[in-house]
């Protein structure tokens, strides 16, 4: 009896977690002009409106570009740092870890403000996309780092030693031994950086240049004045894109994401 009650309680919490996401997806198929419940029939008209809306389409392209650039840069820098932390840092290991996780522990809004001032102070401003990409790299670094560290720690150093005793040079050992073994962590970290960059709002909002609105920014602006189900269609497409990336991570690569 008690365990029944307990399970029921947990199920309610799971429903609570899914409710807003479910509602958004359901609302996107609404045929009416406004977000009303129950929906006035099923229709894909808001998806058509969305796909014909040049503003949103440009925002999606910007988001994808920023996310791709961020993922590439973050992955290279974060992977190198992870290799250093696990293999070479010695007693400094904990210090390196704390430093690498710092962007995660600091409030995103504060980091965004700090970067905004900094870019103005150095005369770079926010005219280009560069500032936004730098901001995204800073906040996604911890995720790449954690994922690669996790796979490095399950990597047996004896393999490296064996290759060395067989005469393999540093580069060959990295290319042929280490990289293939930590590849899941590296790819997982890269995809994770991509998702975070694609979804993040505050840092993009403060660092966006003229005409470089990402999808979350465009959606936020739209929601402040509009109530049509178009926003729901935009959201659903964005959710679908994220799910696609996650499915790639979990099914195709067979990885577990290390978010913490």
């Amino acid at each position, binding site marked *: 009896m008690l365990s029944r009650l307990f399970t029921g309680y947990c199920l309610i919490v799971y429903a609570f977690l899914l409710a807003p996401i479910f509602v958004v997806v359901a609302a996107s198929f609404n045929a009416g002009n406004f977000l009303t419940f129950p929906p006035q029939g099923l229709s894909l008209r808001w998806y058509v409106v969305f796909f014909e809306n040049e503003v949103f389409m440009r925002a999606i392209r910007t988001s994808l570009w920023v996310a791709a650039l961020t993922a590439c840069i973050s992955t290279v820098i974060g992977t*190198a740092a992870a290799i250093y932390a696990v293999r070479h840092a010695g007693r400094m290991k904990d210090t390196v870890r704390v430093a690498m996780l710092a962007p995660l522990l600091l409030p995103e809004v504060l980091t965004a403000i700090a970067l905004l001032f900094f870019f103005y102070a150095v005369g770079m401003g926010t005219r280009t996309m560069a500032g936004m990409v730098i901001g995204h790299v800073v906040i996604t670094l911890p995720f790449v780092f954690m994922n690669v560290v996790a796979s490095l720690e399950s990597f047996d150093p004896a393999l490296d030693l064996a290759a060395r005793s067989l005469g393999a040079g540093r580069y060959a050992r990295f290319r042929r031994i280490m990289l293939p073994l930590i590849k899941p962590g590296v790819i997982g970290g890269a995809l994770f950086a991509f998702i975070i960059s694609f979804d993040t709002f505050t840092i993009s909002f403060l660092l966006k240049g003229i005409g470089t609105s990402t999808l979350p920014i465009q959606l936020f602006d739209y929601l402040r004045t509009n109530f049509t189900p178009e926003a729901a269609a935009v959201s659903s497409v964005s959710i679908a894109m994220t799910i696609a990336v996650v499915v790639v991570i979990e099914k195709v690569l067979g990885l577990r994401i290390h978010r913490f």
Partner: protein
Amino acid sequence: MATGKRRSATLLLIAPAALVLLVFLVIPYVNIVIMSFRPPGEGAPYGVGFTLANYRKFFSDSFYMLQVLNTLWIGFVVTLSCLLIGFPVAWQLARGESRLRPLYYSIVLAPLLVGIVIRSYGWTVLLGNNGVINRTLMGWGVTDGPLPLMYNGLGICIALTHVLLPFMVLPIMSAIQGIDPSLEAAARSLGASRAVAFRRVLLPLARPGIQTGSILVFVLAISAYVTPALIGGLRVKTMAVTVVDALIDTFQWPFGSALALVLSVVGATCVIVFARLTRMRWKVA
């Protein structure tokens, strides 16, 4: 000689990350502190010289003080509700025997993978005057008019609890997973009731997870921008919303920095007091 060369080669691995964090994190944060002492500028975001005027403006206006208190109160309520809602779920994920556990786990992770703007938007659809909840209640005849669920502190707390729940569940879950189940069994076999075994064995051992989760949720709640901005509208503003408005809409950079720093210091003080009270041992994951 050879080892020295090797060492400098490995330092190249950490150099890019160190450079990024130094230039784009440490220096900008120091810069905020400097900015908060700048005078407001004419036609520019800030002027030259230094002044205490920004802090004086904050401490002399009870409007901002009340807003800080209100923000902390929201942070407190959200943390507490995340803990109460999240603990049983964390336990179920760590110890449950259901075959559906992987599914439950992905349900807890799912909100993290959906953008914050979308999740907050979902809550406006649910909580609005014409939203799902009010429509349903009115349809059933439970209430005559719409309940005020949005544009107030309640709506912000509900939505933030949802947004931040995974940050509470995941650390507690991993803490419980690290506890040997036989300890509870031992307590039970020694005659402890379920309640006593929970209070005297499970809860103390799960404490590090509870502490980590609470601090994460509290810090994220008081610094959240999107959710309060969308759910609170123009009527209820938290500190983070006021700070961003001061920077983006009115270009009061020095004053905005001072506000942000006051909130950070107050938030950090709360975290330290909490850690002291619960005798937290700082450990790096």
